[in-house]
């Protein structure tokens, strides 16, 4: 079963998403700042990352680049606050597989987990 690292600066969101992943028996870890995220990435060695794009210290794109340097095969689903083409294109350019827009439609999230990860 693939492993997922969830990164969002709002702790509550990471808790919720990890809990959601647990329903699929997907093992996950959470991080809410870049330092913890990088440490978790090195230790936990996830196959997937859920990445919030807008974070205060380091944005999701920068973090994804750093993850890719450590493990070029890592796959990502970006979480964005707005439905704009620019960040979606950027996400694709950096090798993210998909993106989800907040507020999330849990049905859509469910579909994307089934489609990509399972």
């Amino acid at each position: 079963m693939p492993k997922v690292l969830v990164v969002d600066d709002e702790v509550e969101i990471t808790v919720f998403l990890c809990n959601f992943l647990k329903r699929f028996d997907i093992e996950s870890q959470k991080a809410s700042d870049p330092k913890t995220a990088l440490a978790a990435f090195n230790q936990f060695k996830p196959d997937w990352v859920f990445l919030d794009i807008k974070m205060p210290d380091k944005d999701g794109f920068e973090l994804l680049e750093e993850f890719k340097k450590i493990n070029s095969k890592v796959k990502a689903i970006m979480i964005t606050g707005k439905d704009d083409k620019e960040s979606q294109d950027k996400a694709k350019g950096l090798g993210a597989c998909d993106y989800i827009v907040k507020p999330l439609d849990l049905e859509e999230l469910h579909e994307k987990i089934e489609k990509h990860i399972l």
Partner: protein
Amino acid sequence: MKKSKSTSSKKKPRHDYRRDLETAAKQMILIRRVDTLIKLILRSIIKNLKVEHAGLLLYEKSKDSYIVTVSRGKGGLKIPTGLTKITKDNTLVKYFTDKQLRIFGEGPLILGKLSSYLNSRTTRASKELRIFLQDLAFQFSLYNAKACIPGFFREELIFILFLGQKVNRKPLNQEELGFLSVLSSDAVMAIQNAWYFQDLDKQLNRNKNLFLQTVMALATAIEAKDKYTSGHTERVSYYSLLLADELRRTNNDLQKDWDKFIQDLKIASLLHDIGKIGLREGVLNKPGFLTDEERSEMQKHPLVGSSILNQVDEFNQPILGVKYHHERYDGEGYPEKLKGEKIPLIAQVIAVADTYDAMVSDRPYRKGMPKDQVIQEIRKNRGRQFSPVTVDAFLSLCKQGKI
């Protein structure tokens, strides 16, 4: 005797839902903020029904979806505010809004009922209905819900309330479902009420802005005519408000309602010279000294200003600032030679702000005085031209580097 004792000890004291509902309804009506209101509703549900979690998807017009506004519960069952949504084409919304599909009747929809209907062999649902109901059950599972309660205002679905399982894992009983139905319709009224208040607030703000913009437009009219004093009005307003803040900090008992005072001061300071609109151009823009006749015409501008503003009810306080900003504390000012504390505070403040700016600013026919010298001059006039409290506030602002 013995018998009755044994039955009463078996029976737990019944939960008095009616009283809970009355309390909840009474609290609800007092709250005008929608999110606070929903928090209260959910708290009441979790406390009374002892469910593991509860949340509310509230309709949001701008997104045309139902967004999780508040969710309560332990650990990962709590959904952060605004994180998730369901769109209008979601099966849950369709179920509650389409009478044909609402096969379990109005009011709460219970997962248990839905599942046993789907699993029953005697069910003769069409294939389409079966798929629909299966998807409905799936929607429940996404939110870990055991029950969903719709909130309607007239025909419109305003919210969907979802509940997790009870801590004791028992299904909700008839009485509890009744409690939820009544709570839900109370909640609709309260939310609708809160929305009305929000709209009203918005409208009020819009009017306030319109009013203030009109004042600004009037103020610009003076500046357009008095070419020598460009920016003066705005600066006087700026200094006046600084002075008011300082007075509020140091002499709070001078005013009862400071917020209102500051509102009025803002208007008065912007319009303090509005009366100059009525002056002959030659007098207003004359470089150098005025003749006696010209000066007495010039000195009419506070009265002219006050008679212009007299037309508007809302200006009754600002007028005092306009009319008396050339009065002197020693009674030697104009137009009424008011003395001391007879001069309204609003005018005392503008007097200092106006004089300060006039003295430091350059005019085509003279350079502005150095700031230090102007401060000296104002200090010297404490209790003569100006009221002591306003001069003290002014000097304190200078000391703090704010002026």
